[in-house]
């Protein structure tokens, strides 16, 4: 049998990989890719808690659907920002976008 | 006549007896039988696909007042087989600078995404792959893998024209996916289920009628969106030969090109099958309940008719420009599809408990009224534009 903790470990590993991507990547689009991995880790958790808990309550699945909508909104606005920045600064390397840095 | 009433069950039980006779474990025999069934089913689809090449060539020849293939076999029906042998024996050229893994993966996913669709299609009352309760969304999901394969092909070829063709095709496919999904929502509302099997059954049992009578506009929107999704004329600007050579598969040769071509033909036939299953009663017909093989025949015949309509449109209508295509989708088809969905949902809910004839009449009438309102809006719009143009001309003349 597959225990609940296996799913949680998998999602923890996925979350950490996504965190590394967000922190280490230079390119703004690659950072958003890392955020997607982290959101998916959260989704695995929600669905496995639904499945292993009282699965007559649909909260876990409804939550994950809302997470899908949030992910879509985040990607839409995030990539639009990246493109706007690219147009004005001609770069999307996060290290070079330091206009507010002293 | 057990075999005629439920052939799958008879074959399954016979194979099960044979395998357990060889002292295999129950789950192993079940797995092997399912695997055999899948391989057999997909092989049958591929043979059908090969015959579709002949059908397509013969039909286009008739539309263009030609004879078409007529040398190999009676009516040239064996023509596709030499074609395939030629494709297999052709040298496969991978262009310099191509990204090898996506380049080779793209044609596989392209044909695969079409084959996946057949897993959920109910061929007859007791002949179907799997009764998935989210079948309609599964269709959309398989289609999105096809979209991905196109952008992979365009990007990995390292060719400007391929990339340009892929952009156009993807813009086309993702735009028309919205009205297509909304058109898929209409049978969902009417049948209260996303399973293709339940939707097909809802069109005959308990006095149900074909959904094309309940929602003719939905069927029309689905057909238009399906043609656009296929990238067939009039929406074939992804391959506009005169401008961008042949679209995203320009760098593909030999069998890889053959896979794209086979995928496109099979996709057209598959959409014919979906129009049949969603709006024209699927396998339903006289005596189809008792004899599933007859039902499968009805289904293939209806799918073939849908495929013929798609070909008819393809070889009659000229190609449209990309701005017209996108404007037609976003400014006309998408709002219309959403309006139809809202009207269908509310009218369906209100008329849920009335007799069938009243329900059908009410739904049909709501569709007619919606079409009438649309036409009036379009006429008012056209009149406004005409008057604006006339007054501009008058001003210029002064």
């Amino acid at each position, binding site marked *: 049998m597959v225990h609940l903790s296996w799913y949680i470990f998998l999602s923890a590993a996925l979350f950490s990989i996504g965190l590394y991507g967000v922190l280490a*990547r230079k390119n703004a689009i690659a950072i958003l890719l890392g955020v997607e991995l982290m959101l998916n880790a959260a989704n695995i958790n929600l669905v496995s808690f639904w499945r292993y808990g009282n699965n007559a309550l649909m909260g876990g699945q409804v939550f994950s659907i809302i997470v899908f909508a949030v992910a879509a909104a985040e990607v839409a606005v995030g990539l*639009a920002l990246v493109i706007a920045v690219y147009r004005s600064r001609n770069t999307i390397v996060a290290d070079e976008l330091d206009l507010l840095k002293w | 006549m057990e075999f005629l009433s439920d052939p799958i069950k008879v074959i399954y039980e016979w194979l099960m007896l044979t395998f357990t006779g060889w002292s295999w474990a129950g789950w192993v025999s079940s797995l092997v039988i399912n695997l055999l069934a899948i391989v057999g089913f997909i092989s049958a689809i591929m043979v059908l696909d090969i015959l579709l090449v002949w059908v397509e060539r013969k039909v286009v020849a008739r539309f263009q007042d030609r004879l078409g293939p007529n040398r190999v076999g009676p009516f040239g029906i064996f023509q596709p087989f030499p074609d395939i042998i030629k494709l297999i024996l052709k040298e496969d050229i991978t262009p310099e600078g191509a990204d090898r893994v996506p380049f080779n993966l793209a044609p596989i996913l392209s044909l695969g995404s079409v084959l996946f669709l057949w897993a959920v299609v109910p061929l007859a009352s007791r002949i179907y792959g799997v009764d998935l309760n989210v079948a309609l969304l599964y269709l959309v999901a398989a289609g999105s893998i096809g979209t991905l394969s196109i952008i992979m092909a365009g990007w990995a070829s390292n060719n400007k024209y391929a990339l340009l063709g892929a952009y156009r095709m993807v813009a086309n496919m993702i735009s028309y996916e919205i009205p297509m999904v909304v058109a898929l929502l209409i049978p969902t509302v009417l049948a209260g289920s996303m399973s293709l099997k339940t939707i097909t059954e809802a069109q005959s049992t308990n006095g149900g009628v074909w959904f094309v009578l309940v929602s003719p506009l939905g069927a029309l929107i689905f057909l238009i969106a399906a043609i656009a999704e296929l990238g067939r004329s009039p929406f074939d600007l992804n391959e506009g030969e005169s401008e961008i050579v042949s679209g995203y598969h320009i760098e593909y040769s030999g069998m890889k090109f053959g896979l794209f071509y086979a995928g496109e033909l099979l996709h057209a036939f598959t959409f014919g099958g979906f129009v049949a299953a969603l709006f024209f009663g699927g396998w339903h017909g006289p005596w189809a309940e008792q004899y599933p093989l007859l039902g499968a025949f009805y289904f293939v015949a209806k799918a073939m008719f849908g495929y013929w309509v798609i070909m008819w449109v393809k070889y009659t209508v000229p190609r449209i420009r990309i701005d017209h295509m996108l404007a037609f989708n976003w400014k006309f088809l998408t709002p219309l599809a959403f309006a139809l969905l809202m009207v269908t949902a509310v009218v369906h809910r209100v008329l849920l408990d009335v007799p069938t004839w009243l329900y059908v009449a009410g739904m049909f009438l709501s569709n007619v009224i919606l079409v009438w309102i649309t036409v009036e809006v379009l006429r008012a719009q056209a009149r406004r534009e005409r008057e604006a143009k006339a007054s501009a001309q008058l001003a210029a003349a002064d």
Partner: protein
Amino acid sequence: MTAEQIIFFLTGALILVSALMVVTTRNLVHAALWLVSTLFGVAVLFASLDATFLAVVQVVVYIGAIAILFIFAVMLTRRNLLDKVPQTNAGWPWAALVAISAFAGLVFLVGQMPNAGAQKNVVFGDPLMALSMALVSPDAYVLAFEVASIMLLAALVGAVYIANRK
């Protein structure tokens, strides 16, 4: 090992390997394609958890829409990020340290979890129908349903406004 465990390990390996490729590969289009592979693995995981609707929606939304949007964005901004230069910033060892310690902390916390060894319950009724009714029922999540549409509206208006500003 049961078949269920084999499927879990294969899917888990696919997810983690592809996720590692997403964060380490230099070519951004490849990173987006590896993301597709990760998300497909997550969809298989959802199917193995009997969340049929979410498994299909995962493919429709992530592979069909979000991955395409990523690839478009990469192509739009590809000019001065050559694929050959390193794609990590100077502080990447620190990032790796943070990620590993986050993982260690999470593993420790999961170890403390009281029901870590829980077994799957029998699925109650028809989860798909229950989900549909929960999502639109006035006693359940209808507010979230409507607020989601307002959020999507805000995202559409905002994103198009930002992307098209001259």
